[in-house]
């Protein structure tokens, strides 16, 4: 046995990369090269931003082995309410802090219910998904659709969104990969009992990650309204699914732990956007079948991810026994 610290590249780590590259090349060829035009690439990035921003928050939750399916409605609620406050008061800049605060509050509520009341995150966030959507619909039937205030039109420029997005991505990447918040979250996902027995503040960490997830949804609302120019009736619908897909697509396991990595979120989100955008480029988005194609592709890649991960674990087991049987004295 050599005791070199050499990193081995695992198949399961390559799958998300490979999936992205294959999809990209496929759609480049299928679209006759239109995929690599400057316009397309910009569209790809812009369409990925909302997913990545929300997925950045949910990543922390998934790392702990939980899930937050309330980000979609959270985007809608914080967007609609934040916009209304800005419109009613006439103070345009209030939009940004209001969205963030409302998103954060919903996240805190989720976190409190999960950590203190021990509601499983999956059921809780589904309940939120349904319940909060009702509130949003109710509000919107009264106030209708609103547009970004004149003083805030810079929000709709892609330069602003791209810069704002890069700042957010850098901050979240740092917090997740290089601080205790990320490490502790991974530890909780790996083995919650161990985390607690070592002294990780488990319930505080749970509240924290849901709060981060909520905050990111609040920021997501700003991006969402920036792209469209105002609120819409379907704001954030199915976003939670897209976000969850992006994360799992990137190769993060449902159980979280050390499989949760920041780069996987970026990759997964981009892959999903490539599928959606690529299908529209080759003229399939109008056909009724396009959603089935999306679904089918997702299924294939998720299957590959899980398959390679399983192979890794059985390979590990075999080495485990081999290790056990190789002997020398300490």
């Amino acid at each position: 046995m050599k005791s070199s610290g050499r990193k081995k590249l695992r198949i399961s780590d390559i799958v998300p990369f490979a999936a992205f590259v294959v999809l990209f090349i496929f759609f480049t060829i299928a679209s006759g090269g239109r995929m690599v035009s400057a316009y397309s690439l910009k569209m790809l990035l812009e369409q990925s931003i909302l997913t990545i921003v929300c997925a950045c928050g949910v990543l922390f939750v998934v790392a702990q082995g939980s899930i937050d399916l309330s980000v979609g409605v959270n985007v809608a609620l914080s967007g609609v309410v934040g916009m209304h406050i800005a419109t009613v008061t006439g103070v345009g800049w209030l939009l940004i802090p209001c969205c963030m605060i409302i998103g954060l509050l919903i996240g805190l509520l989720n976190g409190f219910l999960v950590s203190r009341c021990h509601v499983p995150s999956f059921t809780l966030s589904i309940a939120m998904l349904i319940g909060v959507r009702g509130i949003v619909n109710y509000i919107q039937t009264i106030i209708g659709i609103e547009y970004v205030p004149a003083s805030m039109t810079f929000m709709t420029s892609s330069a602003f969104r791209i810069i704002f997005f890069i700042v957010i991505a850098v901050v979240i990447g740092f917090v997740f990969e290089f601080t205790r918040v990320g490490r502790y979250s991974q530890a909780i996902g790996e083995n919650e009992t161990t985390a607690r027995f070592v002294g990780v503040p488990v319930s505080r960490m749970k509240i924290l990650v849901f709060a981060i997830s909520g905050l990111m949804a609040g920021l997501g609302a700003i991006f969402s309204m920036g792209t469209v120019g105002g609120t819409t009736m379907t704001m954030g619908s199915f976003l939670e699914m897209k976000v969850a897909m992006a994360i799992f697509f990137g190769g993060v396991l449902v159980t979280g732990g050390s499989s949760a990595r920041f780069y996987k979120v970026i990759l997964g989100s981009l892959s999903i956007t490539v599928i959606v955008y690529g299908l529209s480029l080759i003229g399939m988005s109008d056909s009724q079948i396009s959603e089935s194609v999306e679904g089918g592709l997702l299924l294939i890649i998720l299957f590959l991810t899980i398959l390679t991960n399983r192979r890794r674990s059985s390979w590990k087991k075999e080495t485990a026994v081999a290790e056990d049987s190789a002997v020398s004295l300490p």
Partner: protein
Amino acid sequence: MSENILEISGLNKHFGPTYANRNISFSVKKGEIHGLIGENGSGKSTLLSQIAGMYPRDSGQMLIDGEPYDPTSPIDANERGISMVMQELGVVGNLPAGVNVYLGRTKQFSRFGIVNLRKMRREAEAQFEKWGLEAPPLGDMPDGMMIESRKMIELARALSVDPQLLLLDEVTQSLSLNNREKLYALIRRFKEMGRSVILITHDIEEMVEITDTITVLRDGEVIGSVRSAETTPDEIRMMMVGREMSGHYYRTDHAPSYGEQVVLDVQGVCVPGELEDVSFQVHEGEILGFCGLSDSGIHSVGTAVYGLSRISAGSVRLTAGDIRITSPTQALRNNVGYVPKDRDNEALMIHASIRDNFCLPSLTELKGPMGFLSPGKLKGMSADMVKQLSVKCTGIGQAMDALSGGNKQKVNFGRWLAKDLKLLILDCPTRGVDVGVKAYIYQLMNEAKANGIAMILISDELTEVLGMADRLMVMKDGRVTKTILRGDDFTEQAVIGVMI
């Protein structure tokens, strides 16, 4: 009819390029208690697993009662009268204990596809009674049970097939004294019935005492077989390691030695159903031992001190800074460490890397400005520790579950030594590790003691606490019944007298 229940000749088993078993030949007579001993990774468990039908062998021959024997599954082995209690197989946590006893064999209780759970539970109860074992509540889920109870369930499962040959892989280590006695009685009964037992244990004294024959394995090969009555633990140790064991195993001094400074002050702690009015102090550089039978509450002392259990009365206080410990987070922040008994489920993240496991308790110390955890620093620290503790691995990125028990324990124990600890709580720190690692852990404890770290040593093994502790607290039914100072009265007889 043959006089041997089991005969193995020329058996080989390898995993990849490594041989786990090489040209193994040995036999077990009817009515014989056969011990199998060797260091971690010498191939004992692999050998038993093949006998029990868990893995196929690569080559060689096995005979059961003179008949060729090729088990394809554990169930197949059961039908030939062989059953096994595995080292770390465990039970299904959320199936009732009674169902666990008949796991995989529920068909005999079912009619028209409906399993008669009541009947199954009655049968399970009967198994415990038949073999003189203490039954845990059979309707309860094993998840909430202590390791010991779960082990008893596994034992009952193995016995329920009415085996001619029982394979026990490190069962005693998980049991406390009273249940060990029951297991010994059971083994004696097997012998009287003309049945055989193969058992693996790291406790050499125990093995010499209860077995008839001992076979020693090293590097996957049989080194030799000796008659237990004609050998000594030292001889066995030498055969296992292949050389004379140098140095001392336990502490050599016979008097308590520790600083004046009180590190931890525990006053009148009560935990409902676990502890009652427990008070003690631990001093700088002191090893305070705890021993007692099962349910005496010794393990609860560890969890209570580390802030893991809800204390209904009393206080746990660190004298430096007068800090009251109420949560594990606070304990961690104030340089207290805890090594739990259940290594794989409570202490380690077994699917994560060695690095992640090493760094977890030290992240606060490793962080730089803005909470920055430099990957280089984490890597450096774990690489240093791996080297210092000579953990056998392919690198710090290797997953924990690829390590053997002894190496896992080195990580589990060693990661606390990377910190500037004041107090370290050790709950059965040498459970399931071989003599080599065991001696090493005692050496680390001695070093920690010399550095002034206060330690609480909770152990099911009396010799261990007697060998290492300065003071020994004997517990019974959640209370401390006696405190004995290291010295002349520090003998097993004296302690057992108080324990029971």
